[in-house]
Structures are given as C-alpha cells and as structure tokens.
C-alpha cells in the first residue's frame, strides 16, 4: 500500500507544482541578491543569508531557512490535509477501503507518502539552492562567517555532512504539521478545511512564541525548535535544542496520529 501511495503522490501534477512554487522564493531572493549585492548584515534576516553573497555554496541552507517558517508548512498542510479528505471528496476512499485496504494501513501509507513528499521537497530546495548559489552568488570561501559564533571554520566534508543533517532535521520538523493535518483530514471531507485547520494551529504556535506571557507553553509549541538546525553549524554541534526538537515532533506524531487512528478506524465512511 505504501508503494501505491508513493506512486499516487509522485504521479500527481500538484506535487510537482508545489515543489516548483517552493523553489520560486529562494531563487527570487538569490537573483535579487546577485543583482543588487545588498545582503542583510550578519545576524539579521534569515539564517546564513548574510554569508551567501561571498560564498554561494551556503545558499542551500539559506534557502531552507527561507522556506521553513511558512512555505514548507503550507505545502505540507495542503498535502497532508488532502490525504484522506481528498479521497473522501473524490469518492475514491470507499473504493480503496473495499479493495480492501485496511484503514490502519491506509493511514500509515498516507503518512509515509507525506513524509516522502517533505523529504523530496526539502532535497529539491537544497539542490536547487546549491545550483542557484553556485551560479549566481559569490564563490569565495566564507565558512568563517558561518561559524563565526564558535570561532572555528568547518571543512568541506563537515559542511556537506551538516547540510545533510539539516535536511533531515528540517524534514522531521514538518512531522507535527503533517500529523495535525492528517488527523483533521480524517474528520472532514474537505481537504481545504483540514489544511487550513493545521495552518491555524501553526500560526497560533508562531504567535505564542513571540509572547513572553506564554513562556510556560513555549517549550511545547511545534514551531519552537524549527530553526534550531542552525545549531548544526556550531563547533561542536549544539545538540540540546536539536534533540528536544526531534523528541517534540515525535510526541506530536504519536498523539495526533493516535487520535487520527482512533477516529478513522471506527468511522462511518459515508462519502
């Protein structure tokens, strides 16, 4: 069933449209930077962006930092929100379940397919970021700028390793959005409703992070550790927030997938 869901996802034009759109903003940013050569000062703007004018190979990281806070979650919410509700709306859910596909299997396959989409999207953003960065932006070695906080510079191998770690971490960070959207997707027959519901949750989380009075809640908010992938580029890697971030995402997945399962496995399919 997982294979079937992957095929469905990959053969869907929407999947590729979303990925193209995801790459549009970072590419636009790169073009603007290349043309104007006005970069944000170090410490301001999205992470790494101040460094890319001198070293284009860092642009994948800047691109990830650009799409992570808003674009990526929107894409994930749309895809995951569509997972069950979209099939219900199209009427295919009743035919899938009478093939038969067990409801639990379907849910797991949907989650795996959403994850595969996230990984694919993040990888494409990183690769496109690399190509764009190399061709448009600076070619000087600016690794000292990146590791400025820790004072030492990274070797090329380290940089590649840590970029890959970041890709994995960013993908994992999307799990909470995916789980929430998937859960909502089992409650409604409207894919749009499920996607918007998940986004409301994210916006609330982002807002609460800026509020001092919400300090008690902040460690448990899904977006709390999203940008912690920057910590991979300290020397040595600062693991504390990264580990917490992954654990937090795991908790969201367990809780919301549990609710999704409890609802979906006994639900009357009337679509």
């Amino acid at each position: 069933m997982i294979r079937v869901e992957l095929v469905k996802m990959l053969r869907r034009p929407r999947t590729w449209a979303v990925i193209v759109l995801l790459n549009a903003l970072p590419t636009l940013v790169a073009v603007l930077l290349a043309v104007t050569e006005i970069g944000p000062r170090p410490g301001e703007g999205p992470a790494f962006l101040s460094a890319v004018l001198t070293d284009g190979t860092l642009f994948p990281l800047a691109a990830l930092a650009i799409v992570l806070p808003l674009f990526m979650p929107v894409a994930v919410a749309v895809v995951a929100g569509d997972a069950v509700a979209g099939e219900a709306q199209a009427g295919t859910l009743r035919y899938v379940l009478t093939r038969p596909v067990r409801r639990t299997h379907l849910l797991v396959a949907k989650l795996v397919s959403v994850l595969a989409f996230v990984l694919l999207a993040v990888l494409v953003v990183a690769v496109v970021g690399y190509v764009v960065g190399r061709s448009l932006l600076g070619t000087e070695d600016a690794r000292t700028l990146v590791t400025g906080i820790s004072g030492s510079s990274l070797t090329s191998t380290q940089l590649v390793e840590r970029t890959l770690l970041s890709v994995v971490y960013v993908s994992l960070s999307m799990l909470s959005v995916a789980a929430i959207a998937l859960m909502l997707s089992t409650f409604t027959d409207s894919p749009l409703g499920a996607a918007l519901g998940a986004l409301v949750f994210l916006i609330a989380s982002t807002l609460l992070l800026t509020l001092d009075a919400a300090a008690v809640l902040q460690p448990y908010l899904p977006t709390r550790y999203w940008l912690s992938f920057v910590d991979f580029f300290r020397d040595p890697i600062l693991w504390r927030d990264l580990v917490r971030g992954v654990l937090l995402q795991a908790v969201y997945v367990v809780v919301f997938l549990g609710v999704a399962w409890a609802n979906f496995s006994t639900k009357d399919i009337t679509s």
Partner: protein
Amino acid sequence: MTAAVATRGLTKRYGPVLAVDGIDLDVQEGDVYGFLGANGSGKTTTVRILLGLVLATSGEAEVLGRPMPRAAASVLPEVGTLVEGPAAYGHLTGRANLELFDAMGSGRRGRRARIGDVLERVGLGVAGERKVKCYSLGMRQRLGLAAALLGAPRLLVLDEPTNGLDPQGIREMRELLLALNAAGTTIFLSSHLLAEVEQMCTRVGVLDRGRLVVQESMHVLQQPTGRTVVVTPDGDRALALLDGRVEVRDGQRLVIRSDDAAGLNRLLVGEGVRVLELAPERRGLEQVVLDATTDPTQVGVSS
C-alpha cells in the same frame, strides 16, 4: 445453496433517525438480487454496512458466509463493488486507475492481462488510454464497473450501475451482468429503476423507510393472483352471467375472481359473450412495490 448475503436484525441509527431498521436480507449464491427502494429508504446505508464502510448499530451481517466487518480482509477480495456512482483519480488514465486499484488488492502477476480483460469487457478498450477527467459519466460508470470486475469476484454489489448510460449502454451492461451471472457470479443490484430490476432479477427485496417489506423470488411475485382479466364489449351480459364474481369493472375490462381462465372462457363464449382478451392476472413489480410500501405518495419509484 449457501447464502451470499445474510443479515439478521441489521439496524443503523443516525441520531434519532433509524436509517436501517432490523432487516433480514437473504441473498442466495447465483441470484440476481434486486434491492429496491425509494431514495432515502436506506439502500445505500445497507450496502455500505455489507461492505464494512459503515458500522451497524446492531444486528449481524454475513457476506459469502463470513461475518462482516470482522472478516473484511478475506471477504472483500471476492466482492466487486460500485457504490453510489463511480470514482477515480481524474489526472490519471483509465488504465492507470485500474493499475492502482489492482495494486491495492493483488500482486503484480497477470496485472496487464487482468486490466486489458476488464477494459474490453466493459467496452472501454481504446478509451482506457485517456485521462479520466475527460470521461463522460457513462464512461466513468464503465470504468467503475471495470474496477469492480478486477479479481473475478464471486459477488458483485452494484448500486445504480446503469446511471448515466444511454439505452445502448444499459443494454450492454445488462447483457454483461447476465453473462457474469450465468458464469456463476452472484449479483446484488440496488436500484430504483423497476424496469431494470424486472428484466434482470431472480429475487427482489423492497425497502421502505428502513424496513424490508418484501423479499421474494420474482417467480413467486409474478405468479397469477387467482383472478382473471377479461376484456369484452358485452359487459352487462358477462356481469349477469358471472353473478357477483366480478370484482372490478372498468369500461370493457372486468376483473373476475377465478383462477380457471380456460373454464371462464368456455362459459363466456358458450353464452355468446364476445371476448376480446382473457388472461390470468399477474402483478407487475410496480404494483408489488406500491402495495408493499406504506405511503405510495412518499415513494419516488419510477419505471
């Protein structure tokens, strides 16, 4: 014979509404079973319960001799379904849709042959390469049936299968279903089209506001009613002659309480009554349904 579908006291309650009210279905293997009822009488809910899509509030259901929904994993591979209209992934071709549905149920071995075969059977041969979003309703209906036929099911559960088909398509569909039935497939056909059911079915169940009010073989339903219909221009003479056995007189048409059509004919002709037509009375399916449903004005049946 074993039961293809058997339910006992099957009930589904949606809040205060009893959608399905204690029905005892009995479909034998080899039947073409017509499941009749007005829109909203509970047909689709019953079908969904049989397929494990909706959970019954109480009662039991067995499909192909095994309990549903508990044995769904072993029962459903032998059941082909078309519930409440066809559905497919619009951005894919008909063939690609069948490939996906086939992959959900069976292994890769023989897939091409299976799909080619069902496409051919429903008359979608060449159109299988076109995207489903360009299909007409009739073509979608054919594709839905093709998907139902994947895996050579023992039981076909079809909800309004001729919906959207032109007269030619309806005829082809009927011939296909009858051929499948002749080859041993049991067919459970839910419909509100009486003519369709009358032409195809061997058994009929009639649902009226959630309750099964008739379940009988077509043969029994269409047996002579014990009355004879006579059409004669000499109504008054016949009336005098038959002495109170005439139940209805409607112009030239008399309905006489007698199952001896031959004897009646001899009597009338012998006495010089001219007979235009004379035949034992048989009820049509429409009459059966109208008689059985409590409030005919509430029933949207059409023939």
